[in-house]
């Protein structure tokens, strides 16, 4: 194949593809020295999902950022970096925080630690924040084992969040020996379409149901499980239990908790316990490509990964640097400090607020190493340099004046020990009278049931429909009609949105418009699109 073999930057499936640089002399394109061609990897049978296919589009994005900005003015790259370096040099380390995107290389992670040591700060963390809860887990199964497994137990809607895993599960599910895929989720989902049995737990009950499944496999009497409370039939529950028991040594528990469960850590921890009790393989799929690798580096270096978020949201900083991530988008309640530096590739919400903006390259344009989902180290094939753009690692090195953190990266990754507790709240789920979650694409069925499918990441903007879908009962209580506005509030934010009344929705649940910037503020971490349930209060807007 022509070009270099690289990996997708969008999710931990890390699908391989080729990028080929076509020189400008052969393909004249104004505004860039070269253009890229993306070609599929013929050796990979997993394909490339809709998001993966966007790698080329992102690389050639009409608004791709090639020029550095200092206080909103275009200046040279060198001047911007040097100004940032000088500004940081005058500050106290404990008032500087660094956020790292999960799609940077391990080498860049090491550079970031060196930078933190140089700046004398411990406040370094990982974005997206959701991955903090799952970054510490070690996977014990492989993609090949999933493909050949007797039973795969899936928690979350991974066919939507990590689409290229689909083929593995189909291969197992459709094997001639009649294998089983079981799903557990709070909604009927794209993954659940193909599962039997499909276990759907009420909002906030998923962890309890998992505990009961673990209990029954460990010897607890099935009659002690409050199946009626879960709304699950005895047949489905019994089938799931016997499939899990029969699969001992030849099955897997795969969990994709982020963007889906509020109590991300607890769900993942219970999934791991289930895998251990039932003698199955375990795999967690976070949001970002290399989150688990970056987490291991930061955690092993003793950096304060939760303190960084606390300092950012409480406004205890003089400087915040977001390497390839945008804290303004991801944190609804961010207090922007005096020095706010960002590196990135395309326009983000924080771009106009940044004092320093430094353009960088995407993961698939870099050379370096990432931690594979199967606990292996994957080398990226090569480097493609955009005009006037440096990689994130190079920028870190210029600011710190140090090449890398002193330590053996490979040893740190391979000798990592799972932490005993969560770096974030153990149970972040709050239950209330009314629960809100992202809308998604709702598909109605003739018998009154509905399936809510999470849409794929919307790269082109926010959803067109901004209404909150409200059950009839709540609408009557509030005396609101279609188009009226209601105030939705919780401890994170208070937003006002128009209403659309539905008679098919459960009485305690409202659906928020996905990707809508206002609605996002209600969630713990604002970049949840979000399928994560949250407790809210609703009242008619006066």
């Amino acid at each position, binding site marked *: 194949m022509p070009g270099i073999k690289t990996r997708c930057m969008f999710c931990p499936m890390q699908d391989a593809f080729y990028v080929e640089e076509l020189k400008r002399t052969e393909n004249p394109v104004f505004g860039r020295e070269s253009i890229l061609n*993306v070609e*599929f990897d*013929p050796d990979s*049978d*997993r*394909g*490339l*999902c*809709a998001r*993966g*296919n*966007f790698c*080329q*589009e992102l690389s050639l994005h009409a608004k791709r950022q090639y020029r550095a900005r200092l206080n909103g003015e275009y200046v040279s790259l060198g001047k911007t970096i040097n100004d940032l370096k000088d500004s940081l040099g005058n500050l106290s380390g404990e008032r500087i925080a660094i956020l790292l995107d999960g799609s940077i290389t391990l080498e860049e992670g090491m550079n970031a630690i060196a930078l933190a040591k140089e700046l004398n700060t411990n406040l370094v963390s990982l974005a997206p924040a959701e991955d903090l809860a799952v970054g510490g887990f070690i996977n014990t199964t492989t993609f090949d084992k999933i493909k050949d497994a007797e039973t795969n137990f899936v928690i979350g809607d991974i*066919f*939507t969040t990590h*689409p*290229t895993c*689909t*083929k593995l599960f*189909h*291969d197992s*599910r*459709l094997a*001639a020996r*009649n294998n089983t895929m079981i799903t557990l989720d709070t909604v*009927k989902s*794209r993954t659940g*379409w*193909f599962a*039997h049995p499909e276990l759907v737990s009420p909002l906030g009950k998923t962890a309890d149901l998992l505990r009961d499944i673990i209990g029954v496999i460990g010897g607890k009497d099935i009659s002690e499980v409050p199946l009626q409370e879960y709304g699950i039939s005895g047949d489905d529950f019994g089938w799931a239990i016997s499939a899990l028991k029969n699969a001992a040594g030849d099955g897997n528990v795969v969990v994709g908790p982020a963007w889906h469960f509020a109590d991300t850590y607890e769900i993942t921890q219970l999934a791991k316990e289930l895998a251990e009790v039932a003698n199955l393989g375990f795999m967690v799929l976070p949001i970002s490509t290399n989150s688990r690798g970056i987490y291991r580096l930061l955690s092993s270096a003793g950096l304060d990964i939760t303190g960084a978020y606390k300092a950012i949201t409480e406004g205890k900083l003089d400087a915040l640097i977001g390497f390839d991530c945008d804290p303004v988008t991801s944190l609804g309640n961010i207090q922007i400090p005096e020095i706010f530096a960002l590196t990135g590739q395309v326009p983000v919400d924080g771009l106009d607020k940044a004092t320093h903006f430094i353009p960088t390259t995407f993961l698939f344009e870099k050379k370096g190493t990432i931690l594979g989902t199967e606990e292996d180290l994957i080398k990226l094939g090569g480097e493609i340099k955009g005009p006037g753009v440096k990689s994130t690692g190079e920028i870190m090195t210029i600011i710190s004046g140090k090449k890398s953190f002193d330590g053996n990266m490979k040893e740190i990754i391979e000798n990592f020990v799972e932490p005993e507790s969560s770096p974030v709240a153990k149970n972040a789920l709050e239950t209330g009278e009314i629960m809100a979650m992202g809308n998604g694409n709702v*598909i*109605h*069925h003739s018998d009154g*049931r509905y*399936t809510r499918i999470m849409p*794929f990441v919307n790269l082109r903007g926010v959803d067109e429909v901004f209404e909150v879908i409200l059950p009839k009962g709540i609408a009557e209580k509030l005396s609101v009609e279609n188009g009226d506005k209601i105030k939705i509030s919780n401890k994170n934010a208070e937003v006002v949105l128009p209403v659309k009344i539905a008679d098919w929705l459960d009485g305690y649940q409202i659906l928020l418009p996905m990707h809508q910037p206002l609605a996002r503020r209600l969630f713990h971490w604002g970049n949840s699109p979000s399928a994560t349930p949250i407790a809210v209060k609703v009242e008619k807007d006066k």
Partner: protein
Amino acid sequence: MENTQEKKVEKRRVIIDLDRCIGCSSCRVACSRTHQEDHNLTQAVALDSARFPGHCRHCEQPACVEACPKDAMVKGEDGIVRRLAFRCIGCKSCAIACPFGAIDLNVIRNVVSKCDLCYQRLDKGLEPACVTACVSGALSFEDPEDVVDANLWGARAKAKPGLRRW
């Protein structure tokens, strides 16, 4: 002089296994990317619940070719039905005539988009972009008669009687 080098007839077609399709649209995005943002691949919606790609069948007697008033739709010697962009006036006659809804009614750059089986990729020995991109193994590029003879789908349907899309 008679042309002794006959163009090889392409018997293979893009075939979809509905028991695998998750409606993720990776095929449509790959198609659009490969064809410079044309929408060559339509999306079919079954009973308002399942969505899957609607590929051109490259019919033996294509209705779209007969319906086109400008001879912009042609069936080549290789059996592939192509749209000639420079002749197309975007009247959508082909899209309306197609019995499978495989041609998008929305015109892009004033012309109709139409699946061409990625013939340029086929010439390089590659499969169509949609098939290569498919994440679930739902799309394959095979001779339809081989698939029917192999009776693959019957076995799969029997494997999981409980399967349903909702």
